[in-house]
């Protein structure tokens, strides 16, 4: 009995269980337990994927997990666990400050497990239609999460998120239908072709190139909107800055990557059928586009959470460009970057949450200098995570960035890589300048730090600890699963 089905069932069950529970402590415990179990199950999945058949399938190929999906599952469970650990104290303080009603908190505890269950389904589904359905489910569950606060701005953010998201998914469905149509035309005697990705990969050679090309265009615009790539990214800063911090941590940390995962599945399919030049250039262009669009916004940003949202846009651009450069080193670098970013970004959002609840504002000017005096531990975590996010060496993001850059040079894309580095430097300057405006110095206005100093720190410390450990010592199975996932994206079976 492979752990595939339990990974999906456990969070879904926790979500439904929370429907029945009354007290917030119980719901929080249910969430944390569910995600801890999923993390263990994902880790259990690792050895299974690393042996000979390199694939784990369940109920005749409906669920399929190869190295890439296991790596994604690990990230999803890690980020979900972190944010559920943080959510407990966060909502207690929100309830105390009457920023949110108990009903909405219950909504949070019901929807978050469904949200991550949806994401697990995306990465484990073999059928492209089911993958679309799972992504639609995550979109819908996260919309209500974004709209938890009753402020007019969070409603606006939720509306834009749902309209742009649903439109993107409609386009993606159109693309999926096209892919299936291309497969239907080639049906040999074996009756109706199954909509499974593995099956499509096996007959990729004979698919009609024109149809696949058109399908990839629609899928790129569709799933690209959900992944927040450049021209379709406008909902991202609004949604991530208006959502409660644990949700924006999950949104930024991993839900963007899940959408990119879906896009990469189609990229692999398109590369298999009509060679790598078409989809690879598109991914590279959109990746670079995202980074170049994010840079000016980071430089002149005045809201802390929007700054972090644009930084996620920039990191997603780097990952997409890394995969777009399509050389084994850059793809490995992109996957490594995914892992490190998934550990860094939540800590940043948790710290932003603490600051938001203490200063009751996210405007960097009004937060003012001296946060290190007001919230020492949160400021320390924000400083360390900020250093990691901008790519300073002791943390892993520097290694993955240099790996992508050196891969770009090795594969001859010199101009693109120079542009990549320029965007990284611009975002470095922007984020560093904004953080040093609020962390050091003496607080101008006396802030009563009602938030007990240790609030939310265990979650942040856990994730920062994991980041530091994995920056210095990367366990062999993780390295192997990333290398294998890189081979899958690179086109090996």
């Amino acid at each position, binding site marked *: 009995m492979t752990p595939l089905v339990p990974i999906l069932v456990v969070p879904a069950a926790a979500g439904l269980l929370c429907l029945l529970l009354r007290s917030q402590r119980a719901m929080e415990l249910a969430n944390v337990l569910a995600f801890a179990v999923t993390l263990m199950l994902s880790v259990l999945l690792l050895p299974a994927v690393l042996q000979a058949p390199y694939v784990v399938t369940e109920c005749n190929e409906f669920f399929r997990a190869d190295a890439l999906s296991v790596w994604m599952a690990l990230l999803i469970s890690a980020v979900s666990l972190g944010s559920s650990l943080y959510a407990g104290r966060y909502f207690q303080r929100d309830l105390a400050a009457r920023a949110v009603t108990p009903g909405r908190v219950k909504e949070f505890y019901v929807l978050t497990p469904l949200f991550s269950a949806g994401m697990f389904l995306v990465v484990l589904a073999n059928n492209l*239609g089911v993958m679309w359905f799972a992504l639609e489910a995550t979109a819908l569950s996260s919309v209500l999460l974004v709209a938890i606060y009753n402020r*007019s701005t969070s409603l606006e953010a939720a509306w834009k998120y*749902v309209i742009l998201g649903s439109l993107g998914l409609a386009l993606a469905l159109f693309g999926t239908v096209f892919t299936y149509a291309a497969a*239907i035309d080639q049906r040999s005697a074996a009756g109706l072709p*199954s909509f499974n990705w593995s099956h499509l990969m096996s007959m990729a050679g004979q698919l009609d190139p024109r149809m696949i090309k058109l399908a990839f265009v629609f899928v790129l615009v569709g799933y690209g909107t959900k992944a927040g790539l450049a021209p379709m990214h406008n909902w991202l800063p609004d949604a991530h800055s208006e959502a409660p911090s644990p949700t924006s941590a999950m949104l930024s940390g991993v839900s963007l990557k899940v959408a990119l995962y879906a896009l990469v599945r189609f990229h692999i399919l398109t590369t298999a059928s009509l060679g790598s030049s078409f989809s690879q250039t598109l991914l590279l262009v959109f990746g670079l586009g995202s980074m170049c669009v994010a840079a000016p916004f980071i430089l002149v940003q005045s809201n802390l959470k929007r700054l972090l949202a644009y930084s996620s846009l920039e990191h997603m651009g780097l990952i997409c460009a890394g995969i777009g450069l399509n050389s084994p080193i850059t793809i490995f670098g992109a996957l490594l970057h995914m892992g490190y970013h998934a550990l860094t970004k939540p800590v940043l959002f948790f710290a932003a949450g603490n600051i938001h609840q203490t200063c009751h504002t996210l405007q960097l000017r009004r937060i003012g200098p001296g946060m290190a005096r007001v919230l020492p531990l949160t400021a320390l975590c924000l400083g360390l995570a900020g250093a990691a996010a901008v790519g300073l060496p002791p943390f892993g993001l520097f290694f993955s960035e240099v790996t992508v850059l050196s891969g770009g040079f090795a594969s001859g894309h010199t101009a693109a890589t120079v542009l990549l580095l320029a965007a990284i430097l611009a975002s470095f300057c922007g984020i560093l300048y904004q953080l040093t405006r609020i962390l050091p110095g003496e607080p101008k206005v006396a802030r009563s730090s009602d938030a007990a100093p240790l609030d939310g720190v265990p979650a942040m410390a856990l994730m920062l600890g994991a980041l530091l450990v994995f920056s210095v010592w990367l366990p062999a199975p993780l390295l192997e699963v990333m290398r294998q996932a890189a081979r899958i994206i690179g086109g090996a079976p």
Partner: protein
Amino acid sequence: MKPPNPEFASQWITLLAAGMLVVQLLMVVQRMLLTNIRLFALQSLMLAGIAVIIAFSHASATHVYWVAGLTLVGKVFVLPWLLSRQVRRIQMEHEIAPLLNASASMLLCGAFTLLGYIVARPFTSLARLGNNTLGVAVTLLLTGFFLMVNRRKALTQVLALLTVENGVMLAAVALTTYGMPLVVELGIFFDLMVAVMVLGLLVYRIRETFSSMDVSKLSQLRG
């Protein structure tokens, strides 16, 4: 009853697809919200018709009946009822002026139809039932997109989204001779239902806080 000859079936399918396109153009120019909802119901009815014809003409595609049935129940009766209940509760009858006036938007829809056919041209040569419905599907998609941009009312945007959905379902039916596997169809249908419910909830909340459905008021988040 022996299946009718394919020639007769593809003629009916093309007719119904054209009907859907006409209904879509009517929705673009129509200003009253309730009539828009009824037009959407009509469009869904035509889609269900196409599905029935396909199921009827292919012996092995029994699951397409299920699809037709669901479309009929869901999109022709349940959804419009839900939406019109919402409209009546908010007593908002009249749509305010769209971005582009009627004639300009008609011209644009013409252009989209042309673009749809250009896109679909290389694929119509395949011997398949209703071979040029793909062009209609793409046009439906583009005009639905335009409708969403053109109108400022939140509920109209939901309707536009549903017409885009209809376009995609038409493409699904047209391109894949037997329609998509049942589990995928069910999933898509179920998602549509939840989406409309969530959208309805959000529209209600927007109506509460903004006391108007005008989407252009939602522009405080900048930079």
